[in-house]
């Protein structure tokens, strides 16, 4: 499945990565090489094989629905680029 320049710009949009035309061109060449490597996966028949997410056959642990965490929002928000009145500030989203 050869990658096109349109694919690169589309994926970059999805990944929220701004990319110039020149960069997209460069990345396209590199990604094509990487996808040539990945194509090898198609050479094996996996019809009856169960996909494996990770090694151990465990399921998500459940816990009691109780409040156990302390409120540390001041500490955590002290790291934010822009905060006001306990809210994270970002450019206006809703017109």
């Amino acid at each position, binding site marked *: *499945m050869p*990658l096109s320049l349109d*694919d*690169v710009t589309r*994926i*970059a949009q*999805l*990944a*929220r*990565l*701004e*990319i110039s035309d020149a960069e997209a061109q460069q*990345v396209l060449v*590199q*990604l094509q*090489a*990487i*996808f*040539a*490597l*990945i*194509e*090898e*996966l*198609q*050479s*094996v028949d*996996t019809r009856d*094989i*169960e*996909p*494996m*997410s*990770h*090694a*151990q056959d*465990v399921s*998500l*642990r459940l*816990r009691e629905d109780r409040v156990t965490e302390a409120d*540390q929002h001041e*500490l*955590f*928000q*002290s*790291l*934010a*680029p*822009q905060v006001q009145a306990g809210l*994270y500030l*970002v*450019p*206006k*989203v809703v017109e």
Partner: protein
Amino acid sequence: MIDASLSELAQALAQKQISSVELTQLFIDRAQRFNPELNAFVTLDPEASLAEAAAADQRIASGQAQALTGIPVAIKDIFLTRGWLTTCASKILSNFVAPYDAHVVEKLRGAGAVNLGKTNMDEFAMGSSSETSHYGPVRNPWDRDAVPGGSSGGSAAAVAARLAPAALGTDTGGSIRQPAALCGVSGLKPTYGAVSRYGMVAFASSLDQCGPMAKSAADLAVLLTAVAGFDARDSTSLERPSEDYGRDLERSIAGLRIGLPREFFGEGLAPDVGRVVQAAVAEYQRLGCRLVELSLPQTRLSVPAYYVLAPAEASSNLARFDGVRYGYRAAQYTDLRDMYMKTRAQGFGAEVKRRILIGTYVLSHGYYDAYYLQAQKVRRLIAVDFAEAFKRCDVIMGPTAPTTAFKLGTKTADPVQMYLNDIYTVPAPLAGIPALSIPCGFGDADLPVGLQVMGNYFQEARMLNVAHQYQRTTDWHLRVPDRFD
């Protein structure tokens, strides 16, 4: 002191031959002296380290020392360390001071170990050379024009140059084992789920594991014992009884069956590495082990599978870096979307962006089945290969890396060339099995070669025993590059 083992250091501290403050100062001095030429550390904070050392001295004096109390340990900059900058060697976290400790850091603090400093790495652990760091590449103590391997290159270089007695690293596709091999030190990736990932910045969640890096298998056992164990805050942490990973070090290995996969000794392996590893295997035969030839048929698909799964998981994990709650935010942007686009374009390096793009693509509508699902099925086949192999052998051995340390800048132009460094290390994380690397000699140009030992799930104690018995009769692991002697 700089060559002392962890137990020798503990003894020296207990017998008051040296204090933790003196010991920590010794390593801080070395780290500061040699960091300009190795770039192994992103952050050193002597004041903070010495304060921890002073507290450790008090603890030792009151008779409450544990195995690591008062001993400085270098910590890969991917682990959150409260009050310290934690950058993941990325511009996007270059201003991020961690508000809490990773679980493994909590364990080290609880044991009274001293944080010596945060080590340099490939950005977000994506790399095999420690060249993608925002803070510049790490250099190999054995040849400063060569890479130390990656992504835990800073930790490996620090131990190799005796700037730290031990270090923590992370391994997703080989990032502990490969730099350990290229730098002539020992490193271990535990069974998936054995060590908590809480507070360890996520790259590929189903593959990432924290592990120890040190001068010997005995030291790996001490560090692993200190940090392993169940943690409810990591949803993939396994509930198992706690282990002393050094309990079997002195066990006899006579009759041990060593599996040698033919795919690990074929095309792609540099002749000098092959020779040195074969010599190490011959040494094991002399120690009474039996060699078993076997095949891991899906080996050739492990790199493609890894480079679908890891980037896919990374694309999801790195979505959180958007300039809203922490880290770098672009200085100028028009709207929210533009803020995300510019923050991430400016904050991430080229390799990270490449992997996010790969990951986004393989997870996208229309491609998920052909790529991601297929890779997960191949992953199952790889795990089955190992399960079959372990019916016929106790451990599997082979080279850790296909070559010795390559020169800086020689593989950065072609990502695929870089990815092929991982051929022997990616199978273990895909299957979730433990694997370690120990030094076993030198190749051409006097560069270190690593021997990889892989074991079945939860076989770390046995693997460390196997490694230790080799280190009892050889001295590769004691070698130090002349400059750092």
